[in-house]
């Protein structure tokens, strides 16, 4: 059985699954329940000067029959008095001494930072997470993402915290920034021990088209919220990769953004995270999802032969490079498995209207389309729209002997440089005569 316990910048946790600072960590009751269910750590709902919240607070993006594919909130930090939160932190630590309890903090002045850091540590917090990410409400008051977007300010505040902190300091970064590594480097320069990312993305999840207002609605008005849930995972993974690959960052990373099962967690770990934080999935399904995540991770590690989280951490990073380093001689084309094909012809119309007209319809009475090999550029689109598992696969066609990148070709002076250059990649690619399009009036059905 692999060992899934972690030591994250000095914070020990029985497993890498933490609850992100959010509504599920609003109280000792919830965190006790989560630890009891199997979660390894929890980042307490951000402590500070208590706020006043609005009603309603959440909005959702549903994709067809999938609820909350994306989720946004306009809730602020804790609205509970500090002393209540501190007392509950103490209580949780008493019952769960080996679990990670991290206090998320957000205040304004150096004095406030000093005070709240000491209070949190005295209550028994194993670490501190500085909330420089909240992109709604708090940023209007100069906190949250307003700090995260100014690397110099961020650095300064981290250094204030480090003046008094004895426990590890995690800096939570906002994605609402051009280059997240600027903020990550500032966190390191300020003395931060780790970073966590991403916080939510500024968003409007939808518009009430009957009442002309965005969601969520507060008495006929709305404001931008912070976006999270499965929809943001690709953005989070990219920012994680950027921070993990950057030589000047070099800090442990807690990955956040759309994680809801073991596989999501593995992807974050392979891109350099050593713990993961979850919120939306718990808000959707409850703490019980942990019972799918832990055995899934353990099973994966066993199958791959990983003994510890550290052994798998960042495994995929070395294979993510700049576009200019990709092999231009690698050629794949699509192949349709006739026995699996159900004849929906979605691959046909996707390629026909959305790609390279490389799929034809059979006239032999079957509905199995065929690949026009000379037109296929190996883009994957057909295999992505195909509703049948492993029906369309991409088959390698080059001999694997040549490996020439854009960078190589640039250095060899072998790239197109003029508008009508003979070296244009699509010069000899088949493109139908535009006028033939008008003869096809069957847009979807014959």
């Amino acid at each position: 059985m692999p060992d899934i316990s972690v030591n994250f910048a000095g914070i020990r946790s029985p497993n890498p699954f933490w609850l992100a600072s959010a509504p599920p960590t609003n109280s000792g009751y919830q965190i006790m329940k989560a630890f009891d269910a199997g979660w390894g750590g929890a980042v307490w709902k951000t402590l500070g000067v208590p706020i006043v919240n609005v009603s309603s607070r959440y909005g959702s993006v549903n994709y067809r029959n999938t609820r909350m594919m994306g989720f946004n909130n306009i809730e602020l930090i804790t609205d509970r008095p500090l002393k209540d939160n501190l007392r509950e932190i103490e209580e949780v630590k008493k019952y769960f001494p080996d679990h990670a309890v991290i206090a998320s903090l957000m205040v304004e002045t150096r004095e406030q930072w000093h005070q709240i850091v000491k209070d949190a540590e005295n209550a028994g917090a194993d670490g501190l997470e500085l909330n420089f990410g909240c992109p709604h409400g708090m940023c209007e008051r100069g906190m949250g993402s307003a700090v995260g977007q100014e690397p110099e300010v961020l650095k300064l505040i981290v250094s204030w915290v480090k003046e008094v902190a004895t426990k590890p300091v995690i800096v939570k970064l906002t994605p609402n920034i051009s280059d997240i590594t600027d903020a990550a480097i500032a966190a390191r320069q300020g003395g931060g021990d780790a970073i966590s990312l991403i916080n939510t993305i500024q968003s409007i999840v939808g518009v009430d088209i009957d009442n002309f207002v965005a969601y969520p609605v507060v008495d006929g008005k709305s404001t931008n919220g912070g976006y999270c849930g499965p929809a943001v995972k690709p953005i989070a993974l990219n920012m994680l990769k950027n921070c993990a690959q950057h030589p000047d960052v070099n800090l442990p990373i807690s990955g956040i953004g759309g994680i809801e099962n073991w596989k999501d967690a593995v992807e974050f770990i392979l891109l350099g995270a050593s713990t993961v934080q979850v919120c939306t999935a718990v808000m959707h399904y409850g703490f019980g999802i942990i019972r799918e995540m832990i055995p899934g991770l353990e099973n994966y590690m066993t199958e791959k032969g990983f003994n510890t989280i550290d052994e798998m951490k960042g495994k995929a990073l070395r294979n993510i490079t700049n576009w200019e380093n990709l092999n231009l001689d690698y050629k794949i084309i699509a192949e349709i498995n006739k026995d699996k094909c159900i004849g929906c012809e979605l691959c046909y119309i996707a390629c026909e209207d959305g790609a390279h007209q490389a799929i034809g319809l059979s006239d032999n009475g079957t509905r199995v389309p065929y690949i026009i090999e000379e037109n296929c550029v190996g883009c994957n689109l057909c295999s992505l729209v195909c509703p049948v598992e492993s029906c369309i696969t991409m088959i390698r066609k080059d001999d694997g002997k040549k490996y020439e990148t854009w960078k190589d070709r640039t250095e060899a002076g072998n790239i197109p440089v003029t508008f009508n250059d003979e070296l244009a990649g699509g010069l000899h690619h088949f493109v139908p005569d535009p006028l033939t399009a008008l003869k096809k009036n069957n847009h979807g059905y014959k």
Partner: protein
Amino acid sequence: MSDYTKPTNESEFEKNFEQIKPLMNSTQAYYESSRCLFCYDAPCVNACPTRIDIPLFIRQINSGNLTGSAKTIYESNYFGYACGKVCPTDVLCEGACVYNLQEVKPIEIGRLQSFATSTAISESKKLFIPGKSNGKKVAIIGAGPAGISCACELRMMGYDAVIFEAREKPSGLTVYGVAPYKITNKEALDEMDYLQGQFGFEIHFESGIYKKEDFIRLEKEFDAVFIGTGLGKTNSLNISGMNLENCFGAVEFIAELKIHQHNVKVGNKVIVLGGGNTAMDAASESARMGAEKVILAYRRSNEEKGAYEFEYDLAKSAGVKGMFNVSPVEITGKDKVEGVKFIRTRTENGKVINIIGTEFTEPCDMVIVATGQSKQEELLSNVSGIKFDLKGRLVVDPENYQTPNPKYFSAGDIISGGQEVVNAAADAKKAARGIDRYLKNKS
């Protein structure tokens, strides 16, 4: 043994005849519509006689445009709601759904179709505006699926459409013939009211056109005449005992049941003669009316029966027992039916051969004969030039649905020999187009 007890009131009747395709709620419709793949050149559309753009109406349900969805359906099929409930979707759209090829449950197209149209009907959504009057009038004989569909299409083109219906209610077999567990009379009639509100055709009930003078009057008063009468009475079997009490024609029995419901008396032991869909319905309905034993007797083998397999399954699930390769020789009894004398048969080169010496009598107290319907013979003597083919179908040209008498057009069971509501709806629309072409060329 039948699982049903005799219904004694309307609610018990409804329970025994529980809808097999109940109306979806909006949550069901949302989730089901989410599953549609939006196929290119979708096979479901090709499998629909009225060629409804099914992926489109399902996508419109999913995107919250129910009005648009209903319009998509009604533009192709004026019996949109009824067809969603009564169509043999297993062998049409749903049977063609590509999901079947991976053994994934096909999309419930029929139920989605009824869902989409039910809102338009219940909210009386105005989807259609009849065409500007062109001053021409068309008489339509029969307010069934063919007649009503033809009337709707004619109204869209600006014709006056006047329907003459022999019975008291519109929709033809939808009310008088379709099994009660497929659609309720209220559902069928609500759609008819909706269509009349939308298209403004005129219907005269209890105004059958039978006599020569009636036809002459129509020819004089109208620019064209559409015949949508459907088929005639149940064919009589050429055996003795047909006149005994408690021996009924299936079509007549079903019509009686549809109108009088739990008040119809059904025997304790019923024998249904026939192997088509009407026989299945009659057998299934007898069982649901609480008959202790229902035997479906067919002179050919199970494999040779004309009924859809799912219809036979439905009858069996209601408790009906199939008896194949038995041919009725005589219906026995003094005044009332007491049994049916059969002889066993085998099929040779498609012909039914009686096996000598195998006669036996199966006791029963009711016989339902479901051996096809007769053609509308009286038309021959009343309308000049028209003819029936060897199978008893009124002959029309396949494009315009015009009879050899140019003033007469026709569609529905009378030209097909008995098909589904959806076929009548599809053909009658084409017939209306044929009428339009004919009258435009004439003037």
